[in-house]
């Protein structure tokens, strides 16, 4: 019965993902060995342990909460990537959609003093529009969504820096604190913070992100829209033949993808966990890590929840590395190694299936040989 289990697609995805993680950590370890052999093992352990690096339970809980706070936006970004990928689109623009989502909610909160729900809706709308640009360009001008996505990432970054410069602290490049200047825009905590030794940054964003992941799964698997979108992703000619509106579906997909990633921005910045630096000169990695999480999660919304947590776990864990030997970016290194390895997932599954086929064939040959012997007797 073991063989049947291996044939199961979900089990294969799980095996492939675990393999990617193990190999990614191993390769990361080897890189560290080259840089400085003395502390490589410790450094990898520090990354993997993340908040367990603290010995006191309340600090552990608090930092576990912090990791979760950043998992929520990451999950949203990876859902954005996943959703588009199911329709055959590679939404690398999630990074920029996340940026404009952050911009929209911060601006609405700080400049217009809106409360949290309209701020969140603002992010969704702006992100949707931003995604729609990619969709329109793809549907009507045949522009590769990866390249237009990257361009829009940078456009989004500079626009955001420009806009948020009007609501920043006078003496620093950071935007004003919501806690002091726009408490009405803070996401409600519903007392969730108490579970993490009074971590005030733990908000409804976390359960909301998980619920959205489940909703995405239901949408894809159980509804007419999901049936259409996946058909378009699998075979766009057949989808067209069956009368599905291909262009509309591409645009709709990227609107939803944009809204999801933008919501991620709101889920982080409306907690006041971080402030936006208007002098930053590179696109935040959240959207790119979302790609890692989407593929590591086997392109399954539920798998993505765990994968997002894992990616954020090691990213946060990077802070615990002995900085005299390595930099905290080793967690970026590991997660990008993991995405690279995710490119091999198809091959891993193929290898598993070939292995099964071979062993089955052998078993059949054995059985046939046994039959012949039996016949001879």
């Amino acid at each position, binding site marked *: 019965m073991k063989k049947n289990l291996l044939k199961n697609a979900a089990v294969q995805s799980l095996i492939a993902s675990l393999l990617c993680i193990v190999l990614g950590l191993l390769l990361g370890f080897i890189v560290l060995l080259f*840089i400085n052999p003395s502390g490589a093992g410790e450094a990898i352990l520090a990354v993997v342990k993340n908040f367990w690096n603290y010995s006191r339970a309340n600090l552990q809980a608090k930092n576990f909460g912090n990791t979760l706070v950043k998992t929520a936006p990451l999950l949203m970004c990876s859902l954005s990537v996943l959703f588009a990928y199911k329709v055959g689109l590679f939404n*690398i623009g999630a990074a920029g959609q996340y940026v404009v989502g952050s911009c929209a909610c911060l601006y609405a909160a700080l400049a217009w003093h809106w409360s949290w729900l309209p701020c969140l809706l603002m992010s969704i709308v702006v992100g949707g529009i931003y995604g729609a640009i990619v969709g329109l360009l793809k549907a009507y*001008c045949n522009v*590769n969504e990866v*390249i237009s996505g990257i361009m829009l990432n940078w456009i989004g970054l*500079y626009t955001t820096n420009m806009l948020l410069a009007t609501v920043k602290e006078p003496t620093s490049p950071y935007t004003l604190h919501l806690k002091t200047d726009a408490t009405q825009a803070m996401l409600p905590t519903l007392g969730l913070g108490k579970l993490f030794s009074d971590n005030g940054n733990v908000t409804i964003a976390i359960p909301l992100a998980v619920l959205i992941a489940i909703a995405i799964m239901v949408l894809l698997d159980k509804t007419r829209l999901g049936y259409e979108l996946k058909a378009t992703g699998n075979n766009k000619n057949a989808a067209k033949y069956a009368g599905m509106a291909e262009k509309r579906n591409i645009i709709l997909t990227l609107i939803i993808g944009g809204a999801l990633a933008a919501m991620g921005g709101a889920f982080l910045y409306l907690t006041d966990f971080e402030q936006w630096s208007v002098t930053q000169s590179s696109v935040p990695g959240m959207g790119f890590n979302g790609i890692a999480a989407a593929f590591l999660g086997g392109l399954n919304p539920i798998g993505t929840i765990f994968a997002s947590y894992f990616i954020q776990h090691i990213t946060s864990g990077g802070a615990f590395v002995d*900085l005299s030997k390595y*930099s905290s970016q080793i967690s*970026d290194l590991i997660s990008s190694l993991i995405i690279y390895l995710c490119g091999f997932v198809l091959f891993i599954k193929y290898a598993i299936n070939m292995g099964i086929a071979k062993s089955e064939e052998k078993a059949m040959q054995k059985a046939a040989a046994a039959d012949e012997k039996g016949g001879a007797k």
Partner: protein
Amino acid sequence: MLLLVQYTLIFASVLMLVALGGCFSEHSGVINLGLEGIMVIGALGGALMMRALPNSWAALPTILVVLLGAVVFAVAYSALLGVACINFKADQTIVGTALNMLGVAAATVLVKAINTAADPNNVSSEIQYVEAKKKFLVNIAGFEFNWFMLIAIIMLVVAYVVLYKTRFGLRLMACGEHPQAADSVGINVYKMRWAGVLISGVYGGMGGICYILAGVSLWKFENGVAGFGFLALAVMIFGQWKPTRIALAALLFGLFRALSNVYFGFPFLVALNIPGSVYNMMPYLISLVVLAFTSKKSRAPKAEGIPYDKGQR
């Protein structure tokens, strides 16, 4: 004005080099979305050379060794794309994206480690190359001629000749257009695609080191190359995968990129009082507009992006 020309030419050189790299890879049938990462690693290789070389070296050997460092690093790195996409038939988009992230992360980790090893208090990801950089420049009546401008022109000619005048070029393009046809006349498609990818590493690496030498004399590797790899892909598409048109497209894009460096030198632009961010996003905006108008009738190699499988025919 001279400054604008100077910056235009140097940025155009970068874009052209990298776009030509993409051109080789795509003509062989592999979409190289990892050019950004390849540039970073190439820049790293070159910067490490500049850091290591004594200042007493003459200009020519310095330039050659720096170039060699960049090329060797970038080619080795592009092999990661080759293995995954050619031999293991991985999704070229995922692998390219991974290489971009990995390039920045690996370079940052490495440079920080080197800096920290030299000075325990230095945790930056910067490499300085004030002296070495001077060797790349020749001042001609106020115009800073950069040797990379010449290198870019040479590499353009090389690309043109290789693609259109040699046996190798003919076979390479056949693999990107119709790999089954190439295979049927005994051309090893895998080998040619490997060649395409590695050559894109050569060009990408040169572009990378050229980019960090363009404006400043120190580089912070955390920043990557600011989407230049993708701008180069836009240049390549605008140039319709043809070297000469790529060169012209690179000049146009180079001009817009240069504006963001020197707009404050033009009184009338300053008078417009446009925030710097607008100039910064100019090249990206322009490329988006250009792509919108040129992508419809693209002459992309027909088989690009499709892993070649000998068994399927």
